[in-house]
């Protein structure tokens, strides 16, 4: 993923709805976090924190992204994680609804 797309804002990301990893995405653990590959749009994305990987893996189990954040991530970090989730959603790695 381009670092440019991390400039994506959270405005398009609705944290109150349910999100999950797209079924077109393979996630592979690496020492630094994980690599994600979208087989449809061929995007390769680097997830650079283990907590983000865990969050992404468990998103589908929560009614909303916000609830997943509340359960899994320190509240002071929510803003940063929302930016990351938003950028994953805009790369179609996450599927909403």
């Amino acid at each position, binding site marked *: *993923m*381009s670092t440019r797309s991390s400039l994506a804002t959270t405005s398009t990301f609705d944290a109150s709805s349910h999100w999950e990893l797209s079924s077109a995405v393979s996630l*592979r653990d690496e*020492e630094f976090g994980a*690599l994600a590959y979208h087989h449809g749009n*061929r995007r*390769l994305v680097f997830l650079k924190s283990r907590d983000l990987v865990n969050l992404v893996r468990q998103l589908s189990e929560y009614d909303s992204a916000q609830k997943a954040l509340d359960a899994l991530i320190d509240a002071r970090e929510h803003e940063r994680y929302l930016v990351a989730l938003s950028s994953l959603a805009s790369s179609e790695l996450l599927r909403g609804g």
Partner: protein
Amino acid sequence: MVAENSLRDRFEHGLAAPICLTWELTYACNLACTHCLSSSGRRDPRELSTVEAKALIDEIAAMQIFYVNIGGGEPMIRRDFFELVEYAVNRRVGVKFSTNGTRIDARSARRLASLDYLDVQVSIDGADALTSDRIRGVGSYDAARRAMDHLAQAHFGPFKISVVMTRHSVEQLDEFEALASSYGAQLRLTRLRPSGRGVEVWQELHPTREQNRRLYRWLLERPNVLTGDSFFHLSALGSPLEGLNLCGAGRVVCLIDPVGDVYACPFVIHDEFLAGNVREAGFGSVWRTSELFRSLREPGNPGACASCGSFDACRGGCMAAKFFTGLEMSDPDPECVFGHGERALELRVTIRPISSSDHSTRVPVALALR
């Protein structure tokens, strides 16, 4: 994708599995391109069998290598080509394959178009037959264009047009862009490397320093042109180009050749960069335990480039380009944008290494284009 430095540092230590694996399916080829990286022509009798190839795909799937770049030789010459490609994509191993296009007719184009997870790269080396055929042989350009027509008619979608940047093709960048756009295709440009038979033509065909500067600016304005991270040595000119901008050999890429030998990258089919063979302990074991790969994952020695302020941008350039021009790993890239490589080459008296794997046809063959 532009990787920031911290991430790039991590990649230097290697990954659990390659991001990008190149697999040359066969050394057999019906063309005899002068710059062939793998010195292809004759099929190697020790080629992996269909059963062995499928076992390798199983392992690639288990290691979660997302896609493989299939090349050759001409991969479509293998009788089990479609069988292997379908076996891979059915296991969610994406396939990007490079072809000279001679075997793509209306029927095979429809079959290719029916597959998900498949990308096709058709190679040409000029925007017209005269320029391209000088490298790839008479009739090859028209054959590639017919393949593109078939792919377009079969509604394959955005296939890729792949071009090696030579002193001649680099003058036709806008023509390539127009050609790709006329097909709704994506343009992919790669670096001419002095590997395989390329060592014979590199000196006369590699772009001049001025041409490289123009290419860099052209690419910088077109982040959508694919390069396979080929031109990171040019990033020393300013802003980094799209890509990881590091030598991925043994760290994030490697090559499996038709007989199962594993090399550090697609451009170093030579004993010196041979890490092992998939027939022995499997690919994963070679990737994880090869002494060669371990040493490649050590931090690079900046060598002669240590005092250059741009080392962080180009990391000394391409290992293969140095090796096959007779330079040391600690020397600058032979196409260093500041000319340091040219000076290193002038002073170098070592004889450049001779290819240890050559499947070139022994006598020039008349092109048998179907």
